[in-house]
């Protein structure tokens, strides 16, 4: 790890200002990706801006069919939240399965979606539930937020403050664990909402995506059998020693069926 300045602002305004003043600033949320990357010297920011003391980034609120989760909320907090469990059980369930207890106690929703790891779980919920990402300067629709592998619509210095999830009629998330990392080799989030059925896939491709073949089938019949042996196009999917594109495509159908079966 290279030397850096460590800053711990006490407000959103101070955090954003600290970033502006830094030569090569990086926000630090839970640090579950950033710290290992810094330790491997693959990132060497001049200033690390720790967001743990910024009050505007905290808290879970359920209001008028919207579950708003502060960016610095840990996975463990989301998993344990009675409010989230009642409003969107699928979201609490997803959070309870991220990484291991250490990761869940440190890692945050804001950090996860800002990093946009192709195998992360939260992006599937954000896209699957058509959430809105709220930043220090604007509101970004899920469809516009994730732009590619490790890519987001966030501008330089823009800070996610919370994510607003509309409550679905029914939803569920299923993932197949990568045998080594235990990230999602493939993860599928399905949701039946007032505006239609959504199915978001993570792990399988370079970036989370909506699988229209699944959505069309599930719009016709929201039942496991509708997608169990469905043909998923493998051409844009990832291929590595842990899963070929063909295998991942197959898993998308299997996991979608399982998710639909347990959706509530």
């Amino acid at each position, binding site marked *: 790890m290279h030397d850096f300045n460590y800053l711990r602002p006490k407000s959103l305004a101070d955090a954003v200002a600290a970033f502006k003043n830094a030569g090569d600033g990086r926000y630090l949320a839970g640090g579950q990706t950033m710290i290992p990357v810094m330790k491997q010297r693959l990132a060497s920011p001049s200033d690390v801006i720790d967001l743990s003391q910024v009050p505007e980034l905290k808290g879970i609120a359920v209001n008028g069919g919207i579950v708003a989760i502060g960016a610095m909320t840990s996975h463990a907090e989301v998993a344990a939240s009675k409010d989230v469990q009642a409003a969107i059980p699928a979201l609490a369930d997803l959070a309870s399965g991220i990484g291991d207890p250490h990761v869940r106690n440190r890692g945050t929703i804001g950090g996860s979606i800002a990093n946009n790891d192709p195998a992360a779980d939260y992006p599937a919920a954000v896209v699957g539930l058509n959430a809105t990402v709220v930043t220090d300067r604007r509101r970004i629709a899920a469809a516009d937020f994730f732009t590619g592998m490790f890519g987001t619509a966030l501008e330089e210095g823009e800070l996610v403050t919370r994510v607003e999830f509309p409550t679905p009629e029914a939803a569920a998330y299923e993932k197949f664990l990568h*045998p*080594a990392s235990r990230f999602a080799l493939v993860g599928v989030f399905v949701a039946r909402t007032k505006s239609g059925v959504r199915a978001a896939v993570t792990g399988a491709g370079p970036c989370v995506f909506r699988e229209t073949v699944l959505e069309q089938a599930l719009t016709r019949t929201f039942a496991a059998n509708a997608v169990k042996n469905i043909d998923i196009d493998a051409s844009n999917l990832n291929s590595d*020693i842990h899963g070929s594109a063909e*295998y991942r495509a197959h898993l998308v159908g299997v996991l979608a069926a399982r998710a639909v079966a347990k959706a509530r």
Partner: protein
Amino acid sequence: MLKPHIGDSVLRHEDARFLTGRGTYVDDITLPNQAFAAVLRSPHAHARINGIDASAALAISGVLLVVTGEDWLKQGFGPIPTKSAVNKKRDGSPLNEPPRHCLAIGKARHVGEAVALVVAESHAAALNALDAIDVDYEALPAVTDARKALEPGALLVWDDIPGNFCLDFELGDKAATEASLKASDHVVELDVVNNRVTAVPIEPRGAIASYDAKTDCYTLYNATQNVHANRDTFAEKVLHVPKEKIHHIAPDVGGGFGVKNGVYPEPALLMYASRKLGRPVKWINTRSESFVSDSHGRNQMSKVRLGINKDGKFQALYTETIGDLGAFCWTVGPFTPTGGSARTQGGPYAFKAMYYCSKAAFTNTMPMDPYRGAGRPEASFQIERIVECAARKLGFDPVELRRKNLIPPTSLPLKTAMGLDVDCGDFPQVFERTLALSDRAGYAKRVEESRRKGWLRGFAIAPYMECTGGGPKEFAGVRFQKDGSVELAVGSQSTGMGHETSMPQILAARLGIDFESIKYRQGDTEATPLGGGHGGSRNLELGGNAVHQAASEVIEKGRKLAAHQFDTDEAKVQFEDGHFFVPGTNQTMTMREAIEASFDPSKLPEGMAPGGLDANTTYERGVISIPNGCHAAEVEVGPETGVVRMVGYWVVDDFGTIINPLLCDGQVMGGTAQGIGQALLEVAHYDPESGQMVTGSLTDYALPRADTMPPMTIEYYEGAPTKKNPLGVKGAGEAGCCGAPPAVVNAVLDALKDYGVTHIDMPLTPEKVWRAIRAAR
């Protein structure tokens, strides 16, 4: 006060220290004024090194030293030699051994090979220096598959070693085996791959070297399994100093599994750097570096042929193996695919004839050295796979076929066609007990329960027979103190197995003294004059028997002392349960009293000096012992995804006398976990084009975890303690790796039998299993 017996599950003495973070591993040691080293490693599988410019690195503040291969050669240091017990080709000529210098000379031959060492005031400065060294690499094409390396025209890892050929090997009667195969009713043939794996001990390798100019001596703290032998190599072969000049200490070591057996370049580089700089130098390998600089294991490709008659009786076994050595012979690398894999061919089954032959090749990959079992797991997997294959092809019940061919106890002792001296055991009884534990009667119901949940259930049983290995001598020293404490020093070494418990347990049980009064020393060239370290499941067999022998010597001396006290003839004094006594009299003396008396000159017999009960002894093994046993596994396979989960596991082991069942269970579970890892998860995978190690981190190298493990039932058969050593022990450490891979793989194939799937190469990843199911559909 704890007076344990042989066979008690004494709790691990070292655990309080380990579990509360109070262990002392190399990285916990800080010497005054120490500098920090880091190793520049080749990013290429194969590259010519046209030059190394370290000027920018040396200009960095705090950087003290850069050592390149050229600098190293100028010092006149020697290459690290191989010590493979098999060191000749079949034609009698020596094996082809390329020079293994501590730094790459002229060419780098595998990703991770050490190219330069930097030393700096801080770890950070050392890392900055690594970034600043400019190496002029000319990348060359690489060969990463031993089979391809042996093909005519293959590119050469070493210009002067034709055909990448290290050595070939054979054992057994080829003509008789061929004749027997020919005469057999059926010959079943199978290609078996033992996948390349690496041990991933929780503590990476690391060392601190400290040179003292006043005494011209080195102190080397090193995460090693083998302080004596490796010191000798560093001293005599590499640095050319008398071995007495190196004090080699292995403090607490966090796992070895063979990976820390060998001689690595870094400690030698550190000793040189410490001498040059006049200060201690510390280096700790990172996890990422460990994957490409810790030795790998297995990686054998075999063709196995089994001759079998219509009645199911095995006739002959013929195995041809190609073993990958990586880019060098490493420490004992050539032994594993040759003698190491040959000895236990055929497992616990009776054969009329056996023949084993192999070739070992160099590739542009991390070299091989022993990994838990080193050849015996490979052999066990080969025989159990071909037996399962024969049962399926010829329509035999796999359990029945095995039962029919196990060597009966009435045939023991015998010498196998591989020359293995099998003295005792009861393979059929162990086999039947394993079957009984696994509740075969309830199996059909469990299959049905699995089926209702959408899972396929499979079962397999895998009897195994292996052998011990490692250095044939061991030292034990018992030194009594006036205050009643006892120092026990043994030259074998724990890397986590619990020797601090089992060795004092043997001494306490034999002498009838307090376990807590014994202070244990190990892993230190000044604690014992010789030592064989750890390897080949050797500790109880050698270290344990050395302690036993030392205890006997203490008792003999105690009898002399007691006879003097009792004013009687020494021959009349007996020792039992911690007491010297003369039968038929009330004369008695405890061992504790004898120890106290031994420090009182007025109580000593003639010729005995104060403290005269001390014993320093060397135990020498006659013949290696034969651990054996049986594993049975039940698995569930998810046909939709190909995922395998372990749902039942039963083990019965014959390790002879069990000293401490708790520690023994730990060995069985750990070995089984690593066996399950090899069967289902682990592979050290190289990209065939680039020669890069694809699974070079824990996010890609899949280790078994707690939730991978099935519930396990473990029992021991103690009806056949070996007479090859006084304790009657057979070695326990590597057996799990012999039993588990075939039990697991055959159980998965059993689950898939209705699909007609007969073979999948390890590791049985979900995708491979899914593809096999899909291909069969």
